[in-house]
């Protein structure tokens, strides 16, 4: 069977054995975006501190996928964090009853660290690769 696929390299020998030399190489699977927010979403989490709210996002991929979430942890700062527990008014709780995915949905568990209700913006990517 012959070698087949698509390779793109810029200024580098197309036969380079180094994966990092390629702009694109179909030999190496790409992290595919199966679903994304499209535009940032908003969620309101009431006080008091430690109050949580779960946002369920269906994906129906049939397996628990990798996903990535960005959030403006403190409203109106313009600072978007990628991650779980981070400095800010609101953070994402990590696994063990927190943020997770299964064969059907991803579950984003937001926790309010302040005494009063907070509305924060978030954006998600759900990838077509197993988590």
């Amino acid at each position: 069977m012959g070698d087949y696929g698509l390779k793109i390299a810029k200024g580098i020998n197309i036969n380079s054995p180094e994966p990092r030399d390629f702009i694109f190489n179909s030999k190496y699977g790409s992290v595919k975006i199966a679903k994304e927010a499209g535009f940032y979403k908003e969620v309101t989490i009431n006080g008091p501190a430690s109050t949580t709210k779960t946002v369920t996002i269906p994906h129906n991929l049939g397996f628990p996928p990798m996903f990535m979430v960005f959030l403006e942890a403190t409203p109106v700062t313009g600072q978007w964090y990628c991650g779980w527990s981070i400095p800010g008014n609101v953070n994402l709780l990590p696994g063990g009853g927190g943020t997770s995915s299964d064969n059907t949905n991803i579950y984003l568990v937001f926790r309010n660290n302040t005494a009063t209700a907070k509305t924060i913006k978030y954006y998600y990517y759900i990838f077509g690769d197993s988590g």
Partner: protein
Amino acid sequence: MNKDYGFKIVKQGSSINTTDIRDILSSSKYSMLKYYKDQTGSVTFTPGDTAQTADIQHNLGYVPAFIAYAKDMDGKMHYISAPPYPAGYDFYMYAYADTIKIRVGFAYGLTAYNYDAETATDWYSEYGGGATTFLLLGNRYGGQQHGALRFSDVDIPQGATITEAILNVAVEFKGSAGNLEAKIYGLDEDNTAAFGDPSGRPRTTAFDDASWSLPPTGEFSNHNVTAIVQEIVNRAGWVSGNAMGFYLLDDSSPTDVYIEDDYNTGIQSQLTVKYGSNTTLTFRTIIFKNKIA
């Protein structure tokens, strides 16, 4: 007529018509995170630093998706998606994007880099045959008054190079105007015991000999005891977490020029120490063209 078009490449052995997205290496049906730039950088902590940040400019005019990796104090590279929540943790890393930059930050939630600060746990004054509830130092009650301070749980590695050690003597009360004259010695022991009478304990060769221009009451008189602390931590038997003590000898202060620091009231004397060398932490950011906000 609906036509399906595009390109699709699947894993070897998989059907080109597979419905499992995981079998697809690449497909025009699914967008990808589009690479914009990546950049490495570093920050340097000097002893005593509590935080450092570094910015990577992207100037995209919107908030992009990004990934950040950084080297922790343990020397391992970590993906900054799960920095520890500051409450209850000491050192943590974070990264955020805005419309012009990615900021990578490193911070101590509780302490600082190569830094130890302790509040006195024992006081001693020779006044009245020896008291352990206050430090009285200077010329008071018609004579010279000497005393001592002890700090437990001093977290400095054995043999560490001390870059700066400051003994902040609390001036809770003071007497007449004028400079207090005093010498400060360290108690030259591996792990100086709680005070009864420490006046007979061995003292360091190094000492501080200063004329104290006293601050207002409620503030500290600060003294550089770097050489003293270095001598103690250089002891073969010194272990991080041991107790360290200082003996303060009045050196013919003028009449009624004194200071007093009482146990468990008002401000308390402190010892702050910076040690060791700088450390540089590296990080890498990968910035995508994908817009999130």
